[in-house]
């Protein structure tokens, strides 16, 4: 081999080694640790509220596990598990108002849950019965963007629109660590800064882009990029629902007040495979996974609540029951979904009549009928 390019790359320091201490309010053992000025942003999050967040975390994990099972049973074509990223998604999404708007990737199903997406509608894409499940305008959330990074620009554009309309709503772009390499995400930062758009860039750095470690994409903490574009940024323990909520509230407040964009890097970990098609044993060191298992986003909230008296066995059992109910609803909503009638594939290609597609639909309809009539 002519040189040791690949070795030099692999020996570089992991970007996830914290640059400055990421915001953390609940440590892995569930202890509340202070971190100014973020404590103030969650001063109101009392026992009940935290229990409610905990319920969210339990439910979204339960749903995620159910979806993986549905895929294994052949009911879904594919599923991208969010296992391990529950706190990052719930903590951020719960901050938003109904009139805010989310643009996400495929993995933000807990965000969709918090936005009020119907459980069944979350599954159409993965069952293959439709290209998307819900009406974005009903829940303030676009359906998933699969082409990596594209949605960052959409969020920025939406935010500029909100500003033009004189509203104080914000837009949020969710994307992964891998996405930060894409030109689109970088252009979104340039434009957001140029227009002082009320947009939050919420990056879930789950350490992996399929099989590629974040070190391939970034030689510095990802959050360090934004300031160069003129965008303040913050790193947060993405497995700490309280800390995520705090940094998100601060960013959203600034955006609503005309302060422009913020970039949030939520440091978390993808505990499962990239999707149900993936085999992480080919590239993940089991020790790394184990290390992260010790920082579980649910465990620490549970420990904290139990300690503070906000959670007893009865409440835990009732939460578990609600999660099971949700999972059952999820499953039913999945298996009930039938294949769409053939000719509906021609629907909505255009909003207005279109000579070409209309003719092809008619012809294909006649063709299908010819079988029924026994002409063939």
């Amino acid at each position, binding site marked *: 081999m002519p040189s040791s390019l690949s070795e030099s790359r692999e020996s570089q320091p992991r970007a996830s080694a914290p640059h400055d201490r990421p915001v953390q309010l609940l440590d892995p053992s569930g202890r509340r640790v202070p971190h100014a000025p973020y404590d103030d942003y969650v001063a109101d999050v009392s026992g009940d509220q935290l229990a409610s967040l905990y319920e969210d975390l339990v439910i979204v994990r339960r749903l995620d596990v159910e979806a993986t099972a549905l895929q294994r049973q052949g009911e879904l074509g594919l599923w991208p598990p969010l296992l391990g990223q529950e706190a990052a998604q719930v903590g951020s999404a719960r901050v938003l108002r109904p009139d805010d708007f989310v643009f996400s990737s495929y993995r933000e199903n807990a965000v969709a849950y918090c936005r009020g997406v119907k459980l069944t509608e979350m599954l159409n894409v993965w069952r293959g019965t439709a290209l998307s499940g819900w009406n974005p305008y009903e829940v303030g959330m676009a359906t998933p963007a699969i082409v990596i990074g*594209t949605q960052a620009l*959409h969020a920025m*554009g939406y935010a500029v*629109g909100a500003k033009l309309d004189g509203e104080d709503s914000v837009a949020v772009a969710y994307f992964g660590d891998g996405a930060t390499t894409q*030109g689109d995400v970088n252009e979104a930062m340039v434009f957001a800064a140029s227009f002082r758009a009320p947009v939050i860039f919420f990056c879930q750095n789950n350490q992996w882009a399929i099989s590629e470690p974040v070190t391939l994409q970034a030689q510095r903490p990802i959050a360090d990029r934004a300031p160069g574009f003129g965008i303040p940024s913050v790193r947060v323990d993405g497995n700490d629902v309280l800390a995520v909520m705090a940094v998100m509230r601060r960013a959203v407040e600034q955006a609503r007040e005309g302060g422009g964009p913020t970039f949030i890097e939520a440091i978390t970990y993808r505990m499962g495979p990239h999707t149900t098609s993936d085999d992480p044993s080919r590239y993940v060191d089991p020790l790394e996974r184990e290390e992260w298992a010790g920082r579980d986003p649910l465990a620490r909230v549970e420990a904290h609540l139990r300690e503070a008296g906000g959670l007893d066995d009865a409440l835990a059992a009732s939460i578990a029951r609600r999660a099971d109910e949700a999972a059952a609803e999820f499953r039913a909503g999945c298996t009930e979904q039938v294949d769409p009638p053939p000719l509906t594939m021609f629907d*909505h290609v*255009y909003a207005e009549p279109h*000579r070409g597609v209309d003719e092809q639909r008619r012809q294909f309809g006649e063709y299908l009928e010819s079988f029924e009539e026994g002409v063939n």
Partner: protein
Amino acid sequence: MAEMTLAKALNASLRRSLAHDDRVLIMGEDIGTLGGVFRVTDGLKAEFGGDRVMDMPLAESGILGMAVGLAFKGFRPVVEIQFDGFIYPAFDQIVTQVAKLHYRTRGNVRMPITIRVPFGGGIGAVEHHSESPEAYFAHTAGLRVVTCSTPQDAHTLLQQAIWCDDPVLFFEPKRRYWTKGEVDEDALDRDDVLPMGSARVVVPGSDVTLVTYGPLVATAIDAAAAAAAGSGGGDADTVSIEVIDLRSLAPVDVDTVVASVAKTGRLVIAHEAQRTGGIGADLAAELTDRCFYHLEAAPQRVTGFDIPYPASRHEEHFLPDLDRILDAVDRTMGRRPALYAGAVL
């Protein structure tokens, strides 16, 4: 009615749209203070302000992605791409997002985005400033593709594109920006936006149907006049060419062309874009399918060659001109040997 250049007609059309609906926004590089490198947006920022007519940071993907977000928010963005050859950085946003979002969201989210693109050659420009990329977009489901050849059409079709709830690629024949013509600014009733871009029979004729669009419509009219005059050998020498301006390239108004070919039995298609996979290929295939028993000769394509747009000192040879069009007409008339006469075993 007023006489104006094609560029001015576009400017008037944009002004009218901005005035009519404050959800219309104009976006692009150098389109505000400068008024665009071809001055098509001249004066609009001064009149409507920088919130309606927005100079964009220099990134085409960013501009189109931003337009998508604005369309989500209920705006009608009209984007200018400075030159044909600079649309490719935005290709992903156009093909995977703009074209597909309405379909993906089952009709819930509309993308009434108009993408204006000065296109075509003939102005002696450097590389990337003379291309004809329309076929890429005509092959992309979810998009509409339109072009214009007269000031009146420029005005009307741009209105239609802007009011259309689907995304429209609007190709402007840059070497005809300075063509003058009468424009009735009220020709289009606001509610009369569809069907957008029916083909237009520009010159009626009976021997050969000559289909083209954009910059070559003027050339086709010249060719029809020359053919009608003949080479001086008397009536037997003249050819009556019916010239059709497609206007809409996707979808194509196939019925108008079929009606003509059913009459003439001969078809010539001309465009500047490369031959292989161009609009002409599809039209030839479609017309052969629909008029097989009417055709007296194989449809002929007169196009740019399958080479990158060459240096400008080559462009007169690259671009289809009157002679090459008449040569093809002659071939369909059997006056010259078919190009591939010897090719068949």
